[in-house]
């Protein structure tokens, strides 16, 4: 679709979405009235910037159904966010919303290389979490054979993967590594499996982690993005070029803003992702602050898709640590750890305040061989990580090696940062 035609479509959809939320959702009506905002004032996509943001807290304040734009009798499904940090939030779907959702996820899955000839194992949680159902609908729409195994029970996942000849795996990237490790323990060679594709989402990960997944499982690992407040999976997803996620721009309007000033960052620079839905019926949302950090990739993709790309989520804007006045993103630390040989992708960042000075320590799990046998080599690794971190992050970082498997593993979202500062 030509950019001009897309923008026309986006504008039309934005105008009718705003009119609908302003008339159907008391929360937005109040906000718009306060601003003395008139729908006629939205004359271009840039006018979106004059609208207020929607925060996670707004969803909590209107728990459970306060932000729905249709009566409950038109709702065919309710989902709830995982509530990793705080009270859960509720979102609803009409029949049309479910249809749109299926279509958008189908695009994402297709872009990742999966076809109707594949067998897809969905190891995202089903239930209130949107991940399982979202991928499920998209995969079914394409005609892929779906194994709705849901999350957890790692050994059984592997058993089924072997027996059912799974070709595509859906889970969080960190869980794929848990699967890989467990396979090693069970003495199963991943190369003997039929697995070819991995569709990962639900948490930030890095290019190095993709390499590791590729090495350990021998699969094409693509990233896809979504969040329940906006729809669930299906907002954007990578094609087989693995160079950023194509945004379903005809259904979502994305902005990348400076998390502090809330002004747009220059094209291509990192900022917080803010999303407005364009076609949601039950739960339209205007300028939702995702707190996810990303950047737009303006260059066209070799795959030929014309939808703009965003870089994989690089962390959370609330995870952003301000250490001695410097903005530090955990993802920067992760990137360095992978680059340095001999380190596993399991780490934790501990931030403390000693004598009024911030201190940041990275706990890194290492492989047994290094940890026990060679003190000298161990020290070398620590020094290498330290100096790389210092240049990458811009502040001094302590590094401590810890024994293999001593850091907490999670099957869902990994907790990477422990901030012990009392501010």
């Amino acid at each position: 679709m030509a950019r001009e035609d897309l923008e026309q479509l986006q504008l039309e959809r934005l105008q009718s979405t705003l009119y609908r939320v302003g008339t159907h959702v008391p929360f937005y009506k109040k906000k718009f009235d306060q601003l003395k905002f008139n729908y006629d004032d939205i004359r271009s996509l840039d006018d979106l910037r004059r609208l207020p943001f929607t925060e996670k807290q707004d969803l909590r304040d209107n728990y459970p159904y306060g932000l729905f734009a249709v009566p409950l009798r038109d709702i065919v499904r309710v989902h709830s966010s995982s509530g990793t940090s705080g009270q859960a939030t509720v979102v609803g779907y009409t029949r049309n919303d479910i249809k749109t959702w299926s279509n958008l996820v189908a695009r994402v899955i297709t872009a990742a290389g999966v076809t109707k000839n594949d067998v897809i194992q969905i190891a995202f949680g089903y239930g209130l979490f949107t991940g399982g159902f979202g991928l499920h609908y998209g995969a079914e729409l394409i005609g892929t054979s779906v194994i709705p195994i849901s999350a957890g029970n790692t050994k059984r996942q592997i058993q089924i993967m072997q027996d059912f000849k799974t070709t595509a795996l859906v889970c969080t990237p960190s869980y794929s590594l848990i699967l890989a490790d467990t396979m090693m323990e069970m003495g199963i060679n991943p190369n003997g499996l039929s697995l070819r594709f991995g569709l990962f989402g639900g948490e930030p990960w890095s290019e190095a982690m993709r390499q590791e997944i590729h090495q350990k499982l021998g699969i094409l690992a693509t990233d896809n993005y979504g969040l329940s407040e906006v729809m669930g999976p299906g907002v954007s997803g990578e094609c087989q070029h693995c160079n950023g996620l194509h945004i379903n721009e005809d259904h979502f309007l994305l902005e990348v803003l400076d998390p502090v000033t809330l002004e747009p960052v220059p094209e291509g620079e990192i900022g917080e992702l803010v999303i407005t839905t364009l076609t949601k019926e039950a739960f339209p949302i205007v300028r939702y602050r995702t707190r996810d950090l990303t950047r737009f990739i303006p260059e066209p993709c070799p795959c030929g898709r014309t939808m703009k790309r965003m870089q994989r989520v690089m962390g959370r804007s609330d995870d952003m640590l301000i250490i001695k006045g410097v903005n530090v993103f955990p993802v920067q630390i992760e990137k360095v750890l992978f680059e340095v040989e001999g380190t596993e992708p399991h780490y934790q960042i501990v931030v403390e305040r000693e004598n009024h000075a911030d201190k940041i320590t990275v706990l890194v799990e290492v492989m047994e061989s290094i940890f026990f046998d060679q003190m000298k080599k161990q020290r070398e690794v620590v020094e290498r990580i330290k100096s790389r971190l210092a240049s990458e992050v811009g502040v001094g970082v302590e590094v401590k090696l810890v024994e293999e498997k001593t850091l907490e593993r999670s099957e869902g979202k990994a907790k990477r940062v422990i901030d012990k500062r009392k501010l």
Partner: protein
Amino acid sequence: MLKIRNLDAGYGKLRVLKNISLHVKPGEIVAMIGANGAGKTTLLHTIVGLIRPMRGEVRFLGQATGSTAVERIVASGCALVPEGRQVFAPMSVEENLLLGGFILQKEQGRAEVLKELERQYELFPILRERRQQLAGTLSGGEQQMLAMGRALMSRPKLVMMDEPSTGLAPLIVRDIFEIICRLRAQGNTVLLIEQNAKAALGIADRGYVLEVGKVILQGPAADLLANADVQRAYLGREKIA
């Protein structure tokens, strides 16, 4: 084909259309549905140039038409089938059709007009049977076909139809809508204005819902048909609680 952005239009001080944006792509049927007084006819009249936009723009084939004369807009390939047919009652069916070919004759000569006339008779065999009859003596459905045929005589790129189902028996409405589908199959582009939401969305590719001068909903026609608001307001599927 047709692109409208932020259009305001109306009569005198009365603003009927408020910030309307819509588009029509080649080869599709787009339905604009809405109740009486929603601004549907005002929209068509603005597109064809009978009313001038107060604000915003209308682009037809890439050209802004804000100040283009009506006859120029029509000549560039935008034809209107007006509400209530508006056939020339004291003239014969064939004369009515030939009038529709006026622009074609001026540009490409008599032979092309006759060719086009033949095409209309193929599309509407009943008009061939009635060719010498006075248009005013035709039935409502036949008059509607005549009005459509007359518009098609100019070989338009975009055909706009204002309430073609008005006052017609359900069976005739079905025939008319079948013909509209056939027009699309032949590569025509149609903007269909209708109160009969179910019939219009049933054949359209996409649709817009107009309410008191605003587009309140838009999307694929099938989605609009399944939309609960549309069902309640226009399809009588469910009583408002």
